[in-house]
């Protein structure tokens, strides 16, 4: 059977499936978010740089990828360095991976004091809004469209370099807060522009709030305060993603921000995290994107089965990778194997796997 959502054998649209799992009920099968970005360039036969130069390429890429892998979202995320590009930084392109932010826009205290929030519509970010608008026309309300923002607390890593930022955090708290204020205003404006363009939800990437990255006194008192303040101003449901960082010790803090979804690290046991998250917050994860590059299709199937077995029962689980972006090097064969396994083994009620 093919429903209006175009997926073979499905009894729910992707949106219904995702909303059901977010409500901690079991949908027809475990939703699958294959967070592919650069793979769209392969589909269109373009370089990564060329692919991200036009909104229509990303729209076409995302639609082809969803058709191919039959997964449950559209992910018009371009690249993380685009946010610093909007602030005036240079972007460095590679042929086989995501671009990096090449030049630092903050090199002195004065740069922080004079930092201005960029105009969203007049910047490179407008391409993302165009892509979201176009995808919304096609997806209507049947497929979730994910918007993405970097947290105000994590963005400075690209604005000024990690080492200088850590020193700022510990040694110049006043200046640190001044930087966070600018970033927070930008983050909220950028998130809400995506929501107004048609994004269903916003994924708030915040690696620095992970206990792997900043000390308890910092990530508990500062990172979560900023997250809570920021997330409450975003006009859509949100997901918090620590981009591979461990989550178990901070689940309660994440729940307190009011977010609906938490990205889980590949370094964590899904069953252990599920025990804390059950009926409280939906888990997104946690297939290992780096190991995925050398998996065989059989290994991919086993990993999918294992994840579903540990976290699928009762809903509240979206199968995905652990980082929020699948590496360029992961082959179509493996992505197809993941998709097929999710469709085969993810049907509710979950069988004994």
């Amino acid at each position, binding site marked *: 059977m093919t429903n209006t959502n175009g997926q073979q054998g499905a009894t729910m649209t992707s949106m219904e499936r995702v909303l059901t799992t977010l409500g901690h009920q079991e949908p027809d099968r475990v939703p699958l978010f294959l967070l592919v970005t650069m793979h769209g360039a392969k589909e269109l036969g373009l370089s990564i740089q060329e692919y991200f130069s036009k909104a229509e390429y990303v729209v076409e890429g995302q639609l082809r990828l969803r058709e191919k892998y039959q997964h449950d979202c559209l992910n018009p995320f371009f690249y993380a360095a685009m946010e610093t590009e909007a602030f005036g930084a240079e972007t*460095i392109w*590679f042929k*086989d*991976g*995501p671009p*990096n*932010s*090449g030049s630092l826009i903050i090199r002195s205290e004065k740069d922080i004091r004079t930092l201005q929030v960029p105009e969203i519509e007049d910047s490179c970010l407008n391409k993302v809004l165009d892509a979201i608008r176009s995808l919304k026309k096609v997806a209507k309300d049947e497929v979730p469209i994910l918007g993405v923002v970097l947290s105000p607390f994590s963005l400075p890593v690209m604005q000024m*370099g*990690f*080492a200088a930022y*850590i*020193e700022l*955090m*510990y040694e110049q708290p006043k200046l640190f807060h001044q930087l966070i204020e600018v970033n927070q205003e930008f983050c909220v404006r950028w998130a809400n522009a995506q929501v107004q363009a048609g994004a269903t939800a916003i994924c708030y990437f915040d690696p620095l709030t992970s*206990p*792997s*990255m*900043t*000390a*308890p006194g*910092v*990530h508990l008192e500062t990172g979560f305060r900023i997250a809570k303040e920021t997330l409450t101003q975003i006009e859509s449901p949100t997901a918090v993603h620590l981009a*591979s960082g*461990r989550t178990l*010790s901070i689940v309660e803090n994440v729940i307190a921000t009011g977010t609906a979804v938490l990205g889980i690290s*590949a*370094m964590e046991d899904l069953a252990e995290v599920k025990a804390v998250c059950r009926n409280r917050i939906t888990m997104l994860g946690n297939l*290992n*994107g*780096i*190991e995925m*590059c*050398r998996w065989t299709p059989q290994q991919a199937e086993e990993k999918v089965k294992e994840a579903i077995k540990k976290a699928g029962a009762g809903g509240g689980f979206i199968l995905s990778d652990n980082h929020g972006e699948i*590496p*360029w*090097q992961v082959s179509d064969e493996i992505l197809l194997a993941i998709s097929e396994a999710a469709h085969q083994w993810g049907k509710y009620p979950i069988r004994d796997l």
Partner: protein
Amino acid sequence: MISEDNEVVEFVEKLIEIDRLGAEQIFNAVREQRNMSQTVDHLILPALERIGQGWEDGSIALAQVYMSSRICEELMTLIPFPEPPAQAQHTEHARMAIAVLDDYHLLGKIIVSSCLRASGYTFYDYGRVTAQELANKIQEDSIDIILISALMFRSALQIKELKRLLDQAGSLTHIVVGGAPFRFDSLLWQEVGADAVGTNATEAVAIITSYMKQRSQT
């Protein structure tokens, strides 16, 4: 007088609280009783090792690892000029360098560099280079050990190309790698042709110390 183990425990506490003055007081107290080499071996290295283990088990955050290594590096600069750096003899045996391959994330390299300096090692810092540039520099400077830090997966994969270029040139340079991609895939270091992997900065120092010992015995 507090025991040696307590000294290390207290020193670690001061470091992870980013209490520079507190760390300096303990450092100075130990220095009054020991020479520089002993201070490194009995205070700095065990403290950095504990912090590295804390990073491994998730009890210590990366920002604390970074600040601790910077404080230790700063403390080493307080040593009066005439005293030679601890373990300086190692540099007579092997030439070392550190680099990142086409990666704009430098924190790992900075942490490892600080730990190496705090442990008394000297080395070349090549910064951010391509595989071809790094192969050339290794040849020009007759490097015995090259340390490569990677955050981006594509950067980790560049090590394959470096290995190919070094093999082509007949180089026997020992390649030691570390960084996030190697933490997420325990077999990746072998796949890219490295000789060893360090999961944290103190492991990198331990690998070098072990390599130096092996070299001095041959």
